[in-house]
């Protein structure tokens, strides 16, 4: 391992940097898992779909393995909105953290 490629900020030991990176990694993984679960259950999982027409089959039986266009655009929009909300909430939290809550 090459020594001192990127100098750590002052007052941060290597273990602390490792801990922060680990926390960040866990946060990222959790975000990804939650995002894909949310958009899957909203767009693809027929059990939780609320539509005007009745469901043709109950349960998770799929007719084809590929995403059709409706599901594709639904997932596009879902991910985009989730990401926007995530960024917005992060901004508000970081801005609100400067005042006492």
């Amino acid at each position, binding site marked *: 391992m090459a020594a001192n490629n990127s100098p750590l900020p002052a007052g941060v030991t290597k273990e602390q940097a490792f801990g922060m990176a680990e926390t960040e990694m866990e946060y990222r993984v959790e975000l990804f898992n939650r995002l894909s679960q949310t958009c899957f259950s909203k767009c693809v999982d027929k059990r939780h779909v609320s*539509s005007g027409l009745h469901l043709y089959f109950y349960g998770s039986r799929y*007719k084809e393995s*590929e*995403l059709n*266009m*409706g599901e594709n*655009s639904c997932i596009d929009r879902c991910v985009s909105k989730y990401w926007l909300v995530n960024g917005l909430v992060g901004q508000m939290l970081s801005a609100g953290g400067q005042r006492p809550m």
Partner: protein
Amino acid sequence: MPTVEEMRAQEVWNNCAIRSAFSGVVGGGLGIFMGFLLGALDNPLMHDPDMSAKKQFIFTAKQMGSRSWSNCKTFALMGLVFSAAECVIEKARAKHDVTNTAVAGCVTGGAMSARAGPQAACYGCAGFAAFSVLIEKFIDRHS
């Protein structure tokens, strides 16, 4: 998990223009075939003493050809409009439903009969919507 080629192929197939062009071509082929069939049925070989057998054959072939071509254009347009409408509606609604098929059928029927006036357009819309919903249910049941 799908491979990169499969995902790219799926992206290509999801493009509305490509999909409707493909449907137009398939509709054109169907129109040619149907025009052939109907032209052959409508012009039976009669024993005309004026024309020789070869001339009669050529005459029949020309009739079949012109009928095939007009049918081909009609069906190609129908397939194109239907597929384009269904694709656009499904992308806008972000749902895979039977209402996409019904509304697309209505648009197609209305567009095809719009020349004959608004009432004909309404009938064409309703009729074609019902027809396309039936065909969709039939296909879904057997696939």
